[in-house]
């Protein structure tokens, strides 16, 4: 929601920015006409110049106020200054009501179209958010139902079949544990989403040494996937990055797990690099890469879980990666994925500089 001052109606909002735009464009129009007038070839050209001015003002300002003002001023300028008799009003010509009417209509229609376009953009953004939520729910229900079925099934099998061999029992229990761990990760991603809230402003960013978050994420990952090797490299100079470290740790956990489970990587490199205004964090693996159609929908939560012959269909990576994207975007950063000759590379950038608006107090 945009904040509105109580005395400004939505149809005729008052703002300093719009006032400046109106003043500048009108001055330009007057200046141009004045030059033409000095050159002695003003007749017939003043009106189109002001039509353009009114059009621009109506397009660039909010509401109908500034467009209407520019119509009135435009008619006065055209009539009073730039049409014979110069420096005098002349309302005898039947064309003038028409000029006024034309300008007014242009202004009103343009303002209306502008407002409509803005509303449409807003609706589109809301739609997008709604879609993301729906995708998320769908993805989550799937991510939860499958492992739950497996856990209930495995434990019931152990409890209800006393005749099972110790090895069979163990396998079933291990299966249940693995599924439960998967569920934990799903829930952690959901927690990250609630932690972010809806608005970007709610993220509590503090400058954190980025290398510490990378190191901790790698350490936790090793505990869970001891068979996968991870190396971390960070620049010699300490890089402090404003972030919510818990959320960024979640992003790293998701990307690392994705490389191990989906990419089937044996080696993962976690890199931290300093760019001009960004910190770039890259997760590079030597796994089997990302397929063409996955690459297109990697971060939008629309990724269908795959049920191919290799049988790891339940490992839906859609949720984890769309959470990554949401977290990175909420930090004002960007995320991207690409295939390498061997394996895949997912990287995200986080802004390192404090936004200029916050630094310069006005």
């Amino acid at each position, binding site marked *: 929601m945009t904040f509105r001052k109580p005395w400004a109606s939505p149809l005729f909002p008052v703002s300093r920015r719009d006032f400046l735009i109106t003043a500048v464009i009108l001055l330009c129009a007057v200046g141009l006409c004045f030059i033409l007038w000095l050159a002695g070839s003003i007749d017939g050209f003043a009106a189109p110049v002001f039509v353009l001015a009114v059009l621009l003002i109506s397009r660039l300002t909010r509401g109908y106020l500034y467009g209407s003002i520019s119509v009135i001023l435009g008619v006065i300028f055209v009539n009073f200054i730039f049409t014979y008799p110069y420096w005098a009003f002349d309302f005898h010509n039947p064309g003038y009501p028409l000029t006024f009417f034309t300008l007014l209509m242009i202004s009103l229609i343009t303002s209306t179209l502008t407002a409509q376009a803005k509303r449409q953009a807003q609706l589109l953004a809301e739609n997008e958010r709604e879609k993301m939520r729906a995708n998320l729910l769908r993805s989550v229900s799937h991510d939860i139902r499958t492992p739950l079925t497996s856990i209930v099934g495995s434990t019931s099998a152990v409890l209800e079949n006393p005749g099972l061999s110790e090895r069979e029992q163990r396998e079933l229990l291990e299966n249940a544990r693995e599924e439960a761990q998967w569920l934990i990760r799903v829930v952690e991603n959901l927690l990250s989403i609630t932690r972010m809230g809806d608005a970007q402003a709610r993220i509590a960013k503090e400058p*954190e040494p980025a*290398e510490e978050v990378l*190191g901790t994420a790698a350490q936790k990952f090793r505990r869970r996937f001891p068979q996968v090797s991870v190396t971390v490299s960070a620049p010699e100079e300490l890089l402090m990055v404003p972030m919510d470290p818990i959320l960024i740790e979640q992003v790293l956990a998701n990307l690392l797990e994705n490389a191990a489970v989906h990419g089937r990587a044996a080696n993962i490199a976690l890199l931290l690099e300093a760019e001009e205004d960004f910190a770039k964090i890259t997760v590079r693996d030597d796994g089997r890469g990302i397929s063409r159609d996955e690459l297109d929908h990697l971060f939008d939560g629309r990724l269908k879980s795959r049920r191919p012959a290799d049988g790891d269909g339940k490992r839906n990576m859609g949720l984890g990666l769309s959470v990554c994207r949401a977290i990175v975007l909420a930090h004002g950063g960007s995320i991207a994925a690409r295939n390498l000759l061997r394996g895949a590379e997912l990287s995200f950038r986080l802004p390192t500089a404090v936004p200029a608006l916050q630094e310069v107090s006005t």
Partner: protein
Amino acid sequence: MNIREKILVVEDEKGIAQFIAAVLDGQGYETIQARTGAEGLSMISSHCPDLVILDLGLPDMDGLDILRQLRSWSSLPVVVVSARSHERDKVTALDQGADDYLTKPFGTAELLARVRTAIRHTRTASGNDEIAQKGTYSVGELVIDYNKHQVLVRGENVKLTLSEFRIVALLGKHAGKVLTYDAIIKELWGPRAGSGNQILRVNMANIRRKIERNPAEPEYLFTEVGVGYRLAEGE
């Protein structure tokens, strides 16, 4: 026969309490359980346990209140258990005297490591056997010499500044335990050091560059994201 350490588990979820008890029993600890905060407090005074595992989300009382009451008369080691989404609670609990924390969901290895460390630290006044006896703390190839005020890594003397040494020394005294950023800052720079922890974070980055082979993959000085630092503990 050894005297078994007695551990009180204050946890309202039966499933979790039973699992914790089963793991600890399996390792030779004696466990008793309380389902509410009130019951927990009364069992602490009647059973005199060696360690308390305290869930912060109890139905009848705030876990932090229990901790506060307990700390008014006892220095009994307490390991708090909290959900991941409550980072603040964790830090508050540590700053109010909890010895360590476990985040739900936790595994058995983590549980046992925290319990072992917390119990070990109560045995000697200085917090560490080795420091009390020899004036050094060593883990892996790292040696902190408290008498000579120096730190050796892989046999070489590391040139630390005074602040850097004091940070390492403090973590060494509490090796294995997490110390919050605030706790370290208060201990080293006094209670009026201000609220920012940037100096500490930068100091730690410098220490890691001097001690660790790869500062981004520490072997000794670990970060608990959002909470504080922990020095590795030898087994």
